[in-house]
Structure formats: C-alpha cells, structure tokens
C-alpha cells in the first residue's frame, strides 16, 4: 500500500475564527503535528468544505485526516471518510463553547485549542485504518437449543428468513412445556376464551421446512469457537455424537415448575393439591369433559392459590421460595378456571390473589372470567390441607377476617425456574480449587458439566452468565438481547419469566440477533454496542508474560488460553471495549485505531507550562458513552468550565492502561481525572465491568504515586451519568480548585 499521508483541516466556522488564531493552529499542525497537508476552511462541514477533503484523499493520496472543528459527536454525516483514518480535535464543544468569554481568557482559550490540535495530530500519527478481521467466519447456520414454543418459533423465523437452522431438543418430541397444556391464553382480541396452543401446526411447519434440521433426544456435549465458526458436538441419549458447525446460537431451554413438594405449608405433596401443570394434565385427560381428580371424583369446587412460593419478599415479606413473580400465573389460573366454568357453570371456582396481574389486554381476559362466574378475592392464604375434602384457610383482605373454604381440588400457581445451566461464579471457584489440586472440586466440575446446557469450551465457563435468580437475562433496559457471550442469545422463560405470547415474541427477537451476529462475523464487524467497528485486538504474543489478566477480565469471555497459557483471542466474540488493553501490564494488546500509543501520544503532545506558570494541566479520560456526551452537552448549553483540563475520550474506562496515568504525571500533568459510568449492581457500563475495573486498578496505583512523591488526590475516578452535564462542570471546577490547593506537580520540568 502507498505511504501514509497526513492532513489536518481546521474549521474557522461557528465563531472559531473570531475567537481563535487559526494561523497559529495551522502552524502547530504543520510544525509540531507533522501534517503534510494543512488547510483551514470557513465552513468545513458544508458540501464545499467536505469536497476539499475528498479531493485531497482522491488526488493527493491523503490517508490520514485530522478534523479540527466540532465534537466527534457532531456532523458525523459530513465528516464521513471511510477510506482514511480520522481523528477529531474538538475545538467547538471542547474549547469555544466552554471557555469563559472575553479577552481575559483569550490566552488560555488559544492554549487549549493549540493542545487539542497537537493531540489530534499526535493521535492520528499512531492510527491505522482498521481493515476488519482477516480471519472471517462465514458459517451462517443458526443453532437453536431447545425445541419448545420459543425454540421452534426462533427456528422457523430464522429459516423463513433464509438461514439454515439446527434444533437440538433433549426430549423425544418437540414442543417442550406446551405439550403439557390443554389450551393457552388468547393472544388477540377479543381476549375472552382459552385458545388451542397451536403447537401441532408449528411442529408441522418445522417438519416440512427444507432449511430446518432437528436433533431429538440430544444435548450439547461441547460448544467451541465463536460467532460464524462455532463447532458443536451433539450427543444423543444413545451416546452417538454428531458434529455441526453453526454461526450463532439461540438458547431457548425454557424452565421447570417450582417443586410443589417444597410448599408443604400450602399442602404441597398432599392428594388433590396440584400445581398448574398438574391441572393441565387433568384437563387434557378430561378432554373437554368434566374435570376429574386423580381419584376419579368429579371436581365441583376448585380454589386457585396465586403466587404459591413466589413473590417471597414482595409486599408480603416471607423471604422464602422464589422472590420474583412469574408473570403468567394470574392469566394461566384465569384460563384454567375457565376450563371448569366452560364445562359446567355451577362449579365453584375461586381465585385467591394478592395482586391480580393481567397487564395490557389481559384485563379483558379477567373480565371474561368474571362474566363466566369465576370469583376473585384478595386474600392471604395461610394453610391448605389436601385429601378427599380439601380446605384452604386464608385471611380475607377485603372483608378483613380469617376464613376458610372447602374444595375438591386446590391448584397452586407455582413459579417458573429457569433452565440456564451452570452458574459461572460457582464454576469459577471450583475450577480455581481444581487447579489448586482439590479432587473433590474436580469431581464436582464433572457433575457441573453434566448440568451445563451449552458446554462452552470458553475460558470463563461453560454457559451464559446468569443475571439474577438464574435467568440468563440482559442487564440493559434499552438492549434486552445484550449478551455477554457474543453470538449466543437466550430466548423465552430461560431469559425471564414469561408466558407463551412473550416467549414467542422474544424468540423472534433472539432469532434476529443471531442472524445479525452471523452477518457481522462474516464481515469481521463488531456487534453491539460498537456495531460496525472493524478494529479488533491485536496482540504481540512474543511480549506476553501469560499473566492471564486479559483472559480473566474480558467481560465477554472472548479470550481463551492455549495449553501454554498464552491468550487466544476470538475476534468474533470480542466487543472492542479494550478492557484487555487496559489490563495488559506489558502493553502487548492494541487496536489499529485505538492503542496505548494513540492515547499515550496525545498525553505527551500536550504543551506543559512550567510550575511557575500557575496554569495547571489536568488530564481527563472520559468514557465515550456517557461522560463525553455529558461534557459535549455542557458545551451545548455554553456552561463554562476550567480551560486547564485536557479531555481524551476513551472507549471504556476498562481500556485505560495505568501507563497513561504514569505518563501523564511524568509529563507534568497536575492531576488526572477519570470519568466513567455507574458501577455496582445497577451498573451502567456498556462493557459491564469497565468502570468497576478502572476504580479497582486506580486504587492500586497509590504506591506508584508515592514513589513519584505525589499525593493520591492527583488521580481520581468519578462516576458520571450522561445527564450530568451540569455536574461534570462542578466536578471539573472543584477538582481544579483542589489541585490549586495542592499546588503544581513537582514532576514538572523533569521530563
């Protein structure tokens, strides 16, 4: 390829020209920035300005472009040059709009702009245009684990979209939980009557579909590889093993009902006390006729007990059993009560609930049941006894009295327990113990691997990380399919308690994400949240000390270890957050357009006034997802903050390598502030642990600071939300004040 040619384009529009000396900026770009082409333009983002740049790329063979104008978040359509590497020096939101007006500030304003141009050029010098992953993974088949309603829906949708699909079902027939149902709740208006499950029709479509292949009585013995190149071993009960290669995986392994035997206080285990599945079985047996109990007696009075062993802490604080609400049970009990009423309106059917939860159009289903004569009462059930004459003792919350009711049958609405496989924290502990030589741990691991659903060969464990209560759910509200194992998507009740309607909807969504994953992998593109990013981690193994920090800290389990314990990067699993780069003590990991050098060189490029100048310099490393936008918006609202700060956006605080901090302090910065997302249980970090890790790592550099004879306050880490556009300003100004208190860094002048 041709030699690199570097160009800087400086905009004097939006008032930049009035407040800044553009000539000086040009000189700096040329002399210090070593830019071969330097041009300024009164309105760089308009068609004509953009054309100049495109012409230079076309005619002058410019390969690297530094845009010194507005924030990298602005005018992205105009400044779109896919064939060259590009850096943005933020002179508008970052300087013009936040430095106090008036001549008094002209000098600091200019200094700030000068530095940003220096930094933009320095960064550019170290950048390469990312080429995308050369090792493209081209397999576009979709593997669906679990042949229930969710799995079948996902498979059919993927296949209908033209993607070959493989279903693995552990049972001898398809259908999963739905095979246990007499009917399902209605999906569409008028939401009045129980409906056929539609399973038969779905199974027929699956069977007839040319792109769908089904493995029954099978489970996954091993899953290796990455999106676009998974290899799975499918083991049949018989022991036979088939190999399949797929590009992405949908895990729809469903749930089991909470064990009724664990609810003795509600008559669990006694005769004629059944769970909802038990009632479905009776209904199937009755086949539309009178529903009879196990002992053959016709049911004339039935009581449904909602939230049985659920909502353990909810409003009503027992702390036992399942803490969550399974969502579907109210509608399911309504449906089941209708089984009785539709067959014989004289049957007494009472539903005892604490909050009747039938959202949306479920309200119509509730009304329909009332019209059929189903009685609903808000009650706290205190005791249930089974047997020939069942009795339900309860506190009637409306009539405010203790009461009891006789019934032929009691139905406990128990909750959904996800089948998500192995809990990774437990697994990690065991493997650690096993590495330590514990035989007990080794045996436990064998058992665990049997319990595993996916049996991933990943360094970080055999299954999807579980979010809470064993559900393999996303932590994100805006991104329900945000998964920590790229290319593997949970769908249905394994992800969150849900009914068939939600599960099938969820399955369709998961199928789309799987399709997206294979398409991205085939182009070497990153998946969400850095969608389309063509950069990927490059490692110089010769420098690696096998410290394993990258393999342990990668939030997405993208990095495995070979037998020599060298990291093995799986680019298609990688989400380009750079956490590995931040973790690496020997700095052998980098991205073409984002590396220890691209940031380090910016830090070093800053012109450092001497300690007598009374102009401190403070480095701010700001997360590009929340902190940097907040700073931008501070600019947008023209909120003034100190002109002594120099801000560098980072992909994630997890990517911050401590060398940057020491470099900054060594080169005379008086303070370093990191701005990252909220950490902890409700973390906001889009890369899960980045902010957490940064805090951790920074807590460890205290020693380094003392060695340098520096106060710990010179390095701080802050949690910042995207809405904090006023707070960031306070944080900055207060910190600058604090640094002024401390005095200038003693390191100045030593470099």
């Amino acid at each position, binding site marked *: 390829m041709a030699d690199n040619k570097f160009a800087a384009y400086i905009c004097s529009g939006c008032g930049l020209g009035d407040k800044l000396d553009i000539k000086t900026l040009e000189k700096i770009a040329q002399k210090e920035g070593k830019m071969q082409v330097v041009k300024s333009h009164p309105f760089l983002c308009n068609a004509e300005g953009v054309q100049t740049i495109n012409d230079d790329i076309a005619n002058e063979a410019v390969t690297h472009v530094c845009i010194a104008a507005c924030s990298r978040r602005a005018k992205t359509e105009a400044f779109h040059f896919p064939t060259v590497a590009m850096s943005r020096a933020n002179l508008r939101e970052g300087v013009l709009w936040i430095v106090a007006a008036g001549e008094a500030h002209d000098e600091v304003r200019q200094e700030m702009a000068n530095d940003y141009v220096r930094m933009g050029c320095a960064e550019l010098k170290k950048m390469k245009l990312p080429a995308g992953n050369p090792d493209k993974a081209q397999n576009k088949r979709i593997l669906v684990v679990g042949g229930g309603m969710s799995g079948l829906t996902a498979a059919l949708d993927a296949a209908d979209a033209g993607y070959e699909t493989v279903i693995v079902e552990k049972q001898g027939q398809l259908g999963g939980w739905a095979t246990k149902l007499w009917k399902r709740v209605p999906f569409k208006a008028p939401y009045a009557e129980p409906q056929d499950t539609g399973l038969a029709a779905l199974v027929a479509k699956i069977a007839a579909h040319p792109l769908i292949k089904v493995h029954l009585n099978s489970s996954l013995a091993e899953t290796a590889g990455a999106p676009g190149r998974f290899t799975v071993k499918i083991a049949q009960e018989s022991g036979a093993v088939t190999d399949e290669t797929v590009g992405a995986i949908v895990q729809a392994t469903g749930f089991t009902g909470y064990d009724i035997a664990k609810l003795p206080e509600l008559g669990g285990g006694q005769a004629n006390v059944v769970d909802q599945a038990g009632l479905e079985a009776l209904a199937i047996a009755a086949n539309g006729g009178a529903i009879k109990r196990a002992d053959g007696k016709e049911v004339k009075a039935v009581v449904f007990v909602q939230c049985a062993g659920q909502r353990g802490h909810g409003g009503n604080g027992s702390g036992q059993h399942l803490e969550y609400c399974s969502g579907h049970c109210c509608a399911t009990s309504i449906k089941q009560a209708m089984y009785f009423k539709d067959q014989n309106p004289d049957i*007494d059917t009472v539903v005892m609930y604490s909050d009747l939860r039938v959202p949306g159009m479920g309200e119509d289903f*509730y009304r329909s049941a*009332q*019209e059929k004569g189903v009685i609903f009462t808000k009650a706290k059930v205190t005791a249930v006894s089974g047997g020939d004459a069942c009795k339900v003792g309860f506190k009637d919350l*409306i*009539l405010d009295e203790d009461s009891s009711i006789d019934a032929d049958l009691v139905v406990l609405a128990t909750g959904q327990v996800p089948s998500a496989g192995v809990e990774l924290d437990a697994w990690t502990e065991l493997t650690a113990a096993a590495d330590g030589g514990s035989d007990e741990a080794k045996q436990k691991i064998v058992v665990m691997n049997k319990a595993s659903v996916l049996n991933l060969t990943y360094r970080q464990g055999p299954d999807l990380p579980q979010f809470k209560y064993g559900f393999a759910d996303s932590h994100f509200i805006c991104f329900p399919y945000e998964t920590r194992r790229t290319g593997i998507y949970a769908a249905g009740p394994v992800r969150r308690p849900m009914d068939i309607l939600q599960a099938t909807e969820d399955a369709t969504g998961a199928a789309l994400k799987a399709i997206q994953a294979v398409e991205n992998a085939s182009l070497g593109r990153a998946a969400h949240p850095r969608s389309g990013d063509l950069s990927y981690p490059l490692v110089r193994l010769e420098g690696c000390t096998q410290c394993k920090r990258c393999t342990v800290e990668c939030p997405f389990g993208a990095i495995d270890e070979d037998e020599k314990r060298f990291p093995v990067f799986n680019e298609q699993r990688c989400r380009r957050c750079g956490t590995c780069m931040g973790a690496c003590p020997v700095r052998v990991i980098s991205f073409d357009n984002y590396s220890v050098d691209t940031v380090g060189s910016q830090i070093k490029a800053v012109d450092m006034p001497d300690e007598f100048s009374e102009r401190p310099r403070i480095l701010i490393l700001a997360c590009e997802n929340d902190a940097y936008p907040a700073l931008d918006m501070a600019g947008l609202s023209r909120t003034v903050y100190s002109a002594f700060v120099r801000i560098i956006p980072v992909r994630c605080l997890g990517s911050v390598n401590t060398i940057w901090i020491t470099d900054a302090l060594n080169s005379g910065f008086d303070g370093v502030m990191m701005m990252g997302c909220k950490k902890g249980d409700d973390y906001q970090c889009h890369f899960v642990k980045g902010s957490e890790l940064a805090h951790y790592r920074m807590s460890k550099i205290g020693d380094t600071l003392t060695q340098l004879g520096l106060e710990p306050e010179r390095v701080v880490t802050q949690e910042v939300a995207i809405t904090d556009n006023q707070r960031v300003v306070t944080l900055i100004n207060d910190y600058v004040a604090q640094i002024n208190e401390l005095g200038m860094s003693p390191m100045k002048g030593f470099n």
Partner: protein
Amino acid sequence: MSYQNNFLKEVEERVEEGHMVKMCMQCGVCAGSCPFGPDWEHSPQKIFMMIRAGKREEVLGSDSMFMCTSCYNCIVRCPRELPITHIMHGLANYAHRIGMAPKGQPTRVFATMFWNNLTKKGRVNELTLTLGLYFKDGLVSGIKTAFGMQSIGLGMLLAKRLNPMEIFGGHGLKDLKGFHAIVAKAKEIEDRKKGFTA
C-alpha cells in the same frame, strides 16, 4: 366456610341487575363516592364481596342499602360500569320483600309509605305522606314531630305550596281503576318471576 356461590346465584336470579355483582373488581370508587358513605356499615363494593363470600344474612339483614339516596355518583364513576344504585335498590327491595330487611328501618318505612301513597291515587299526596310519616310511630311522637316541623308546614302553607284540603283527597287520576290494575298486574308478574309470596 365461605365462597360457595349459592347466594351469588340467588342474587343473580332474583335481584335487579344482580348478574353484574360478579363484575366488581374491588376498586372502591363507589364506596368513596357515596355522599352518605360514612353512614354505610358496608359499602357497595364490600357488599358485592360479601355476596360472593355467601354472607346472606349479613347482607340482606343490613340497613346499608337503605342509605342510598339514588344520587347515581357511584354509577357514573364505576370503572366496571356496574349499575350500583340499581343493585342497591334491588337488594333493598329483595330484603324487604322476603322480610329480612331490618324492622323499622326509617327509610324502609318511608319508602313503603311513599309507594303506597302514590299508588293510592296515582299521584303523591305530599300532605298525607308527611303526616303519615310523622304519626308512623304513634300519636304522641307524631304530634311532637309535626309540632317541630310546623314552622315549615306553615311556611309551605303560606307559600301556597301545601294544600290542607289534600287530606280529603287532593290530586288523583281519572282512570284510577286502570292504574291500579296495571300496578297489580305488574306486581303479580314480578312476584311470580322472583318467587315472592305476595
């Protein structure tokens, strides 16, 4: 022992609009909307729950329904469009007719007198109605009440809005016979339907 549907079924079959009782979702708007709410031992919403719970004696023996002044506030606010006023009237009527309503409940007495008064002549005779009410508990207390009210009576008289001559008859229908026949027939049909013994 509760929540057997026998009483609910009885109400559905024999009480005006009784089939709507099951549609209540216990939000309590009716109870909060009634101008005489504080005077109700059981609010409508609670009565509906009691009916479902099978509390026949408590419900039919209650004087709560007689607190209803037919202001229709509950009806227009009920999110489930239950005709609450009518159900209260229906329950009162049912309790009254099967003799379970509280004896001497003043509104029960007045309402009965009112109906009898209006059916007598086809139109309400305000004077006889009033006097009748005053003397319902016997002469002595009657004289007291009437005396206590005389200023009003007198005022009405002076304002020509009360006619002492009405005591000897007053307004009435020409076709009183026909009117009585209609009322009798209607009552007969309803009694047959609801199994009342006249």
